[in-house]
């Protein structure tokens, strides 16, 4: 059984998590339509070390994991401050 060692919740089996897809930063400000389409649809499909959202169902917590999509090895849990960004205010 695959397990993930997460902060706060400890070591949990992967089966408790729901896959949330690749972490992609949305285009900011008045983005071009092509940038919106790129954000909405395009993905890093080739094998790589990918940052992904994972939702832990029992605790309703979201985590960002770095996973090798070829070997299926989870390399680390990414701290929120590494993926957080400022949302522009109106």
């Amino acid at each position: 059984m695959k397990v993930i060692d997460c902060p706060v919740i400890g070591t949990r089996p992967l089966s408790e998590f729901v896959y949330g897809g690749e972490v992609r930063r949305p285009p900011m400000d008045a983005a071009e339509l092509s940038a919106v389409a790129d954000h909405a649809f395009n993905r890093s499909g080739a094998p790589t070390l990918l940052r992904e959202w994972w939702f832990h169902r029992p605790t309703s917590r979201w985590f960002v994991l770095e996973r090798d999509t070829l070997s299926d090895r989870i390399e680390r849990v990414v701290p929120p401050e590494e993926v957080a960004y400022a949302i522009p205010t109106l």
Partner: protein
Amino acid sequence: MPLRLLKQGLLGGEREPRFFPEQGELRDRYDVVIIGGGGHGLACAHYLAKEHGITNVAVLEQGYLGGGNTGRNTTIIRSNYLTPEGVRFYDASLQLFKGLSEELDINLFYSTRGHYTLAHSDEALRTMRWRAEVNRHHGVDSRVVGPEAVAADVPGIDLECGGNHPVMGALYHAPGAVARHDAVAWGYGRAAASRGVEIHQQTRVTGIRTAGGRVTGVNTDRGAVDCDAVVSMVAGSTPRITAMVDLPTPIEIYPLQACVTEPVKPFLDTIVVSGSLHVYVSQSSRGELVMGAAVDPYSLHSTRSSFEFVEGLADRLIDLLPFTARLRVNRQWAGMSDLTPDFAPIMGTTPLDGFYLDAGWGTWGFKATPISGQTMAATVAAGRNHELIEPFRFDRFADFQLVGEKGAASVGH
């Protein structure tokens, strides 16, 4: 035992002709290089040679012929899709399949079985009615039937499904069929090779050369070749190829697993699919139950199998066909499916001149083998998209012109 075989064994004599000619060295230059020696790639090569007279073609395959998703699917052929674009396209494929054993002179064991898509809720039944109407509008034989029709055709079915999700009706698609998938690849390959197409197995493409915004050749682990056009027909390896030419795509790779039980006496003539139970099942000519479910829960570039898949599938199958609890699973395997956001393929020209894409085949690629080969060949020959595949064009995502096929493409998404 045929006497001919005995005679040949004792006396020697004429040898059976090889299915494929001996593989020689790569030439320096081809008109068209097709990456991927599966059904789609070999079909494209066949139609390029047969219908467009383009025979200076190489099919490059990193493994062996039909060893990817062509040999890993559950061989179902149907055209009861949801969108008019999809119905037209897949029905053209089904029509080609019907005459294919003759055309390729190989027995594809094409077997028309009838295809039930079960509905366990009002919402599902509504989608079935919608599909039936769209299908009939395009001359495809589909109709909504009640639970009693399902019970009459599917021996052993529990219409209550253990009391949890009773069958309320189904979409019945009479032309639904199965065929021997390896033979499709072999037949197309032999036909293409007989017209001069070169097939190179164990030849991996390592790079694609471009100059001035167009393709000039490919690099392989057996040397470089020049060419005017490259057609990528590699399904689960598509993102690795598009990465070579820096082309962003919406394709994500998810493993799709399948399994077969031990063989039993023939009892199930039809193909049964339940989207709600995430299971589809048919009985092969050998007597095995061929079964599949939804794709794996997360993206992965691997063909590994998992216990979770068999456990989940068995749990739901027993609700539907309780007696299958006695059957043992003989084999399981997986393929890498290249999913798109709208569950329709991505086909035709790309922003890079001379680079053609036949991808996004997710869980619905095998049934499209003949028509993909034919339309992609026409597209490469003309340099512009064939009319049937225009709705599946590469830039539809940038234009937000999606082809929403999710309701009919497969199960459990």
